[in-house]
């Protein structure tokens, strides 16, 4: 509907191309920013409630039904709070860092296809662009840590840089497998490749149903391994628990956000969540079939491509499921140590991602009739590789202590 409205506006403004372009960008960007700000608000509520239940608490339940208006109250509080800037900080960079985080995260959303024709910036090198802009996040975080002139901020910033740079490699490598198999960097084409074309347009509704799912990359061996690597790396990339070392409150107060308060802190918070949405959106695009999902042909339509449930509904459903898993993980796993974090990235995820690239290349060349056996073999091989890697990484663990006198 919005897409149709945008197209109509574009048609009306055809006389002045410059104005049409600006209006088009606004029409794409404003709904995106609004929807994701609302998603952010809802996610903070979901996170607080979910964590509370995991920890046997009730969570916010005072503002509105089930505490649903809590994010609004928090927002009002954040805006009206005093903005404290350390006197010896670099005022300009201190101000610009949270904006940069938000801008880079928001810009990442431009390449995610939320539905059919719902990509804000449909370019054919979207995946590369996505990672390039996501890398700016690291810069912004380090900027915040350095500009604050606080030892905790600086430590947090350093940790963030080390962590994000390390985990960016497996993140990109696992995305590379998808790019290899699909043969395109365009996110729309990657989504399109995850539909079993013959099934999805067939008359049989059951086959249509399956055709929307069966092609997801996560069901292939390289896609499965790639999705797990991507998801773990995404956790680290977005500073989510258990990789939230840059803002480890038990060690370095709040890391790079120590010296931020009020609205700037809210911007950081917003930027981080939007970054998480963007990375999860890319994970959905690359591995979970994008906006495809079990769907039906509406009874009033004869078009075989028509869908009863719009694609963006599936997309946002998947996004919130993944977000819930993120919250669930946050409620479960303790924070890693710095050396564990580094060794996990370099000694486990990186080799596994490299092996995964080779497995994907091998499967690409396997003849169609051998594909089932090859897939099973690849699953087993990848598992054994992962197991062996984890074994090798455990070698320096101290042997269990022997007690000679105590029984």
């Amino acid at each position, binding site marked *: 509907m919005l897409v149709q409205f945008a197209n109509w506006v574009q048609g009306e403004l055809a006389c002045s191309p410059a104005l049409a372009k600006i209006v088009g960008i606004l029409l794409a960007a404003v709904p995106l920013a609004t929807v994701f700000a609302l998603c952010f608000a809802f996610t903070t509520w979901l996170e607080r409630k979910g964590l509370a239940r995991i920890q046997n608490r*009730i969570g916010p339940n005072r503002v509105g039904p089930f505490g649903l208006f809590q994010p609004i109250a928090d927002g009002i509080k954040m805006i009206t709070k005093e903005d404290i800037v350390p006197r010896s900080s670099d005022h300009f960079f201190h101000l610009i860092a949270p904006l940069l985080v938000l801008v880079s995260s928001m810009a990442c959303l431009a390449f995610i296809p939320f539905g059919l024709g719902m990509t804000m910036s449909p370019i054919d090198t979207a995946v590369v662009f996505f990672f390039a802009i996501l890398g700016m996040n690291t810069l912004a975080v380090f900027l915040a840590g350095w500009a604050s002139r606080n030892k905790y901020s600086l430590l947090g910033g350093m940790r963030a840089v080390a962590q994000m740079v390390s985990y960016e490699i497996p993140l990109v490598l696992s995305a590379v497998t998808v790019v290899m198999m699909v043969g395109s960097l365009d996110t729309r084409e990657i989504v399109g490749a995850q539909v079993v074309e013959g099934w999805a347009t067939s008359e049989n509704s059951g086959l249509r149903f399956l055709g929307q799912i069966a092609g997801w990359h996560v069901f292939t061996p390289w896609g499965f391994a790639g999705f797990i690597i991507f998801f773990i790396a995404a956790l680290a990339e977005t500073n989510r628990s258990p990789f939230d070392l840059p803002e480890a409150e038990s060690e370095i107060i709040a890391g790079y956000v120590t010296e931020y308060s009020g609205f700037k802190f809210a911007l950081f918070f917003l930027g981080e969540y939007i970054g998480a949405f963007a990375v999860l959106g890319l994970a959905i695009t690359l591995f979970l079939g994008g906006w495809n999902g079990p769907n039906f042909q509406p009874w009033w339509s004869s078009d075989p491509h028509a869908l009863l449930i719009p694609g963006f509904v599936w997309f946002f459903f998947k996004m919130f499921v993944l977000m819930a898993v993120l919250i669930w993980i946050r409620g479960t796993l303790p924070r890693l140590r710095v050396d564990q974090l580094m060794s996990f990235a370099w000694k486990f995820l990186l080799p596994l991602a490299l092996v995964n690239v080779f497995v994907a290349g091998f499967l690409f060349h396997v003849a169609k009739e051998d594909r089932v056996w090859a897939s099973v073999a690849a699953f087993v091989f990848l598992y054994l590789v992962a197991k062996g890697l984890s074994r090798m990484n455990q070698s320096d663990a101290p042997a269990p202590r022997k007690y000679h006198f105590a029984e």
Partner: protein
Amino acid sequence: MDLLGSGIFKGMAVTLKNFAMTYFDRGRKERLPTVQYPEAGDTVTLFTRNFPFLIYDGEEEVDGMRCVACQICERECPPACIYIVKEKDENGKFVKRPKVFDIDVSVCMGCQICVEVCPFDAIVMDSEFEYSKEDRFGDLLFNRDELLKSNDYYHKIHPEEAQARDANLAAKKAADEAKKKAREEKAAAAAAAKAAAEKEASEKKDSPEASEPVAEEPKAEPAAPSENHAKAESEAKEKPAAEETPVEEPAAATDETEDAKEESSGGSEGKETSEEPEETAGSGEDDEKKAEEGEGVS
């Protein structure tokens, strides 16, 4: 060789269970102990104790007060948050109740020692906890009238403890009455013996009425050694004055009176002189009587 990442999934299962169980009635009691405080106010259990209050029996707050202003709690209170001033009647004599009984609950640490040491079960712990006040100092200094709460209230908040204390008080009262009775009988016997002795003496002098005033005096000191028969009479007359002297160690004195009681019941006519100093024993008994009188009023 366990599955890779199985530890993580085990942990995730634990948190999922904790998450899901809070939505079912079966698990909620155990997993979701939060009480929505201002709405659901059943946070107070039978075991809640925080600050002490004074008990009164019956309807009259001041007259039914169990406290006799013995000041034991004041002396035992570790943070010294109790302040007691004894009440005097118009003649300047001490009445067995406090004129001022202040507890500064901002100082009180709720240690319950005052409750433990009180020989009259007059001060007990409350379960009231909503003590927020506008004035930090004045409002948190509770005076006698604020501290006084009825025995019925005590029964309501701590029923078992209140019943135990009531039973204890009743037993004490019964014991005291029995002792009083024994004392009277003893006094009567002593008086009779004295009368007989005096009669023997007076038979020569022809004055038999001398024994009568002693026999009619019920408050005669039974613990007094019978060698001082002549002294006993004068002591009985001095007694009201002795009552006014501030009681120093009533708790110890109570024990001593118990000893004295045992001895007097075991021996014949209190002939065995107690090792304790006579005065302390006497004042202790005075205290007992005071308690009895206080109850008698109510």
